[in-house]
């Protein structure tokens, strides 16, 4: 290999390291393969090189998207590199200017607001209209601020923090950016509460597909979990007949696995309806989850759903509206107390109580006490929470409830699928 060859080997090694950072499983074998491929195909056609390296490095559709991004960022022409360098220089200057501006703006009573570094970065990335909104708010509060500097100083800081946290969540939405490349993939990582009316048929089809995949995966794992049972004489003798009475292959009795009974408690108050609908669709389409289930819907009151009504999820919304629960507040305490006092009791040692709620409820202490009682009666309690995990430290009710039971983030369909897998393993 000549000096040029070594340069490319070095570049390829760097590229492999970059792909590893992107989450691709790249080992020395892939790098060696990439070298062979480049030696054979040459470097004259960028698209050919890209397709050849993609075949070597990317091993799934998701990995192909990550590879394309990494390739386009790593292998750039000289002109493009120059342009990028110029662009980076301009961006760095702009960033420095905005940073010094932000330092001036994020001050109350002439002192820094002392915001977290990541939130300061979010402020830098805000569009001009959003920054203007905050500036105006600060301006309007000036009079109060002079009257009571400490009280209003804290208030202004909390408003800024909340606004910036919300913006941070919007920016961190994993679906942003991959919508064009693969709309289904984007849907998988997008916050369920942000699904538009037009996304719903696609999301429903996606749920059916993921549930089918999960069912197949879980049932195979169960079927082939090894033969820990006793010898099945009848089957062994029957199989032995094929080989003239010699027992070449032994058959074992499979241990019967008892799936847990599931009790679902779904919050269908205004903001939760969309999430509950999708979560129920998912759970109901997963035959591997439980052998029987009962579903209760709640807002201010609580209502057991007729299992036949849930067979047709298309009419779920109208069903909820006719139940009288729609558009009301949330009283988790009443719902849980109802479950605990119902006779015969739906809860028991072989039951998993699955709560679909954002934890926001009236009379939080009563709800917490009722949850503790429900946990005592049920074998296991799992909470699927549609609020993104990064927001949890700022929601008091989540902090309280997560001390009492296992809470799983479920803001996206991907997280919902992971939660269902966890539910089977529970």
């Amino acid at each position: 290999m000549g000096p040029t060859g070594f340069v490319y080997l070095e570049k390829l090694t760097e590229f492999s390291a970059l792909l590893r950072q992107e989450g691709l499983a790249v080992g020395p074998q892939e790098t060696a393969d990439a070298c062979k491929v480049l030696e054979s195909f040459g470097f004259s056609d960028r698209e050919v090189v890209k397709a050849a390296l993609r075949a070597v490095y990317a091993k799934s559709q998701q990995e192909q998207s990550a590879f394309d991004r990494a390739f386009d960022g790593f292998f750039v022409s000289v002109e493009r590199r120059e342009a990028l360098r110029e662009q980076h220089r301009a961006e760095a200057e702009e960033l420095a200017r905005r940073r010094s501006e932000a330092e001036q703006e994020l001050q109350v009573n002439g002192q820094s607001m002392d915001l977290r570094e990541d939130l300061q970065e979010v402020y830098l990335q805000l569009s001009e209209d959003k920054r203007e909104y905050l500036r105006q708010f600060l301006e309007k509060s000036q009079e109060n601020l002079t009257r009571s500097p400490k009280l209003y100083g804290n208030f202004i800081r909390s408003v800024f923090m909340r606004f910036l946290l919300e913006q941070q969540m919007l920016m961190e939405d994993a679906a942003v950016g991959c919508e064009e490349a693969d709309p289904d993939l984007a849907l998988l990582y997008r916050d369920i509460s942000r699904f538009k009316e037009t996304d719903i048929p696609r999301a429903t089809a996606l749920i059916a597909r993921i549930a089918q995949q999960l069912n197949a995966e879980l049932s195979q794992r169960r079927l082939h979990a090894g033969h820990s049972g006793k010898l099945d004489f009848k089957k062994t003798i029957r199989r032995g007949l094929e080989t003239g009475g010699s027992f070449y292959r032994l058959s074992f009795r499979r241990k019967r696995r008892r799936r847990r009974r599931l009790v679902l408690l779904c919050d269908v108050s205004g903001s939760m309806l969309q999430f509950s609908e999708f979560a129920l669709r998912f759970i109901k389409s997963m035959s591997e989850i439980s052998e029987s289930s009962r579903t209760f819907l709640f807002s201010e009151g609580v209502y057991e759903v007729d299992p036949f009504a849930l067979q047709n999820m298309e009419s779920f919304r109208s069903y909820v509206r006719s139940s009288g629960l729609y558009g009301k507040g949330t009283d988790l305490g009443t719902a849980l107390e109802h479950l605990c006092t119902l006779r015969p009791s739906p809860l028991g040692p072989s039951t998993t109580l699955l709560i679909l709620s954002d934890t926001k409820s009236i009379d939080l202490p009563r709800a917490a006490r009722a949850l503790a009682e429900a946990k005592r009666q049920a074998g296991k309690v799992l909470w699927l929470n549609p609020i993104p995990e990064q927001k949890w430290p700022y929601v008091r009710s989540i902090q309280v409830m997560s001390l009492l039971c296992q809470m799983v983030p479920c803001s996206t369909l991907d997280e919902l699928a992971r939660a269902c897998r966890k539910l089977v393993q529970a």
Partner: protein
Amino acid sequence: MDVQELKNKLDAAHYVYDDSLVTTLLVALQLGRPLLIEGAAGVGKTEIAKVMAQALDRELVRLQCYEGLDESKALYEWNYQKQLLSIQVQMNRQNPEELTRSLFSDEYLLERPLLKSIRSEEPVVLLIDEIDKADEEFEAFLLELLSEMQVSIPEIGTIRSKTIPFVVLTSNRARPLSEALRRRCAYLYIQYPSLEKEIAIIRAKQPNVNEHLAVQVAQAIQDLRANDAILKKPSIAETLDWVSALEALGISDLTPEAVRQTRGFVLKNSEDLEAAEDGIPRPEGAQESAHQHCGHCHHDHAAPAEQPDDTDKIQQAQQRAEGR
């Protein structure tokens, strides 16, 4: 083999390809790696193995995977009946060790597709179809074959491949495949074809079909695939079936009536038929008659104002396709 040579061979096999596909095939061939192909059902994954066998002038050995597939069906099995018969016949033989040895010889070995592909004197194309339907154990068992091109038979020992087969694995992603398997393969994901490619496929596979009809069918299929309400998207094979059916009925223009008569060739379940009822693709020049035939609908079937007119799209596609 270089890119152009492979392209020529694919052309000779009447296979419609794009550059990225050819490059990936060549990478797999040159590295001697198995090729894992994923994509929705009916996009032509299996077809690639068939075409490669034709292009490379090799025999195609096919292993269809299913739940419960094991070594005895995929690799080898001893012919137990013949062994037992042999024991009975040679019961009084003086040298029992020799008899035992002879029982595990080639004579009693039933060769299954995997063994056949690696013991073949001439290189073959091995198609392991729908690997996602097989169990995880079988997938793990394949690892030795795919990475070392050898298999171990306890009674005989390790059998190394005489020639390197070109291995093609296909998956519909019914379950995720293991990382270990993926790492041993070159990877290709196939999407549904674009309008131009679909027209080219119809032309290549059905050279006698009316050009106007081919464009109309391709456009209608594209519309059906874009329709979110359709659960089972029509495959390429179904496109070709539809064209054949229309040809057989002597239909040269895809009117709504013709669509209604033959839609069973592309839509295979009642939900999809119902969903398509509201949005049956409107071929060019058929908008008027569509309104007449769809008396029960209250909504307007014509394309929304902000969307480009289908006629223009078809004409553009026709021009692009003719330019190829």
